[in-house]
């Protein structure tokens, strides 16, 4: 049985018909073609699929699209506007906060959730806030620096 859902993603409302078992991350990537949200581990550990639902960071591989009916969603594609990067994105570039870049969308969405509650986090608060995001390249050091740098700018 299909379910009709209505979700607002990056300011655009989409009406769709989905199977109950369609994961939200697959809906974003395969139905809406928003492929910036990555599937890493697919076991809700690595955080590459982190998005914001009604303002809170969530792993999109761990809920069904039907559960997002009526929600306001923000993905990595919703951050830059007209090609202008936001301070967090700019800082990841400046501080070399990425290597292969696979984890970066999730890292930025988690960091954005942190900064909206805590605009001036300490290094340990940043590391605690990133516990749900794995990076296999950088050793996290430059990611933490990028978030500290963004916090200064914002």
């Amino acid at each position, binding site marked *: *049985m299909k*379910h009709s859902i209505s979700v607002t993603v990056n300011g655009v409302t989409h009406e769709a018909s989905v*199977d*109950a*078992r*369609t*994961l939200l991350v*697959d809906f974003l990537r395969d139905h809406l073609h928003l492929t910036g949200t990555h599937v890493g581990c*697919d*076991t*809700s*550990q690595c*955080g590459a699929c*982190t998005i914001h639902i009604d303002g*809170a*960071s*969530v*792993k999109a*591989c*761990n*809920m*069904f699209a*039907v*559960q997002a009916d009526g929600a306001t969603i923000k993905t990595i594609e919703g951050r830059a506007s007209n090609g202008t990067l936001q301070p967090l994105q700019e800082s990841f570039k400046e501080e070399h906060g990425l290597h292969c870049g696979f984890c970066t969308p999730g890292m930025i969405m*988690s960091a954005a*959730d*942190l900064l909206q509650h805590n605009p001036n986090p300490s290094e340990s608060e940043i590391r605690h*806030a990133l*516990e*749900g*995001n*794995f990076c296999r390249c950088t050793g996290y050091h430059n990611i933490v620096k990028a978030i500290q740098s963004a916090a200064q700018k914002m």
Partner: protein
Amino acid sequence: MTPYSFTYHKATSVEDAIAQLQKLGDEAKWVAGGHSLIPSMKLRLSAPEALIDIQGLDELKTISDGGHEIHIGALSTHRSVETSSLVKGKCPVVAKVASGIGDPQVRNKGTIGGSLAHADPSADYPAIILALGATITVQGPGGSRSISADDFFTGMFDTALEDHELITRVSVPAVGSGAAYAKFGNPASRYAIVGVAAYVEKDVHGTCTLARIAITGAADTVFRASAMEEALVGKPFNEASISAAAGHAPDESDMLSDLSASASYRAHLCSVMAKRALMDC
């Protein structure tokens, strides 16, 4: 990874959730935050034929002051418990435990009722709920009842919940001090390899009059470390007595053994983490 097919339903009230579960049969399940159930469905370890989503039941999301206790609605997320000024003010140890569950994304979705009903042997909440002697209120087709934490956890992923009973709230005593939780967590999942929650009361002379020590992660279910408790009660509460009591490690043969830690290492960790928790009380 895609789960097996299921039908999806939304509950409109606690009574409706119970009625729908009765109607949809044995292969139906409630889903709250879904942070244990959905990964298990994706791995096809769990294959419910129907999911009844209870996340919309706002009446189960309140955190209220009950004087000598705090009533935490079963659908309160770990994040809402972690940030609740009421919990932080009147029972800070519970806010601290919540702040260490999983990671921020997990805490934004996972719920206290879901964690307790699932009864994962490595979950954090069961330890503090048991150490504090909290009360779990459940509702079923015949009405509601209260279950003490001492009677709630009955085995691996097993609880005193009867069929069609839903946890509605968890009442924790307002304990301003004398309670602590120390976890040796898995660095990837943040589940407790061993986590020890302790609650102690002392008299005016500093003698320990009550000790409740609950250990998670170590065995097939959370349990009270009775030998440690007995060794503390009646003694002056100081580092020497804490060290002596924490030395009463549980029997290695009762410990879990997996790729994270062997049974003997877990037994050792029980002593180490118990000492840390007690020193923080």
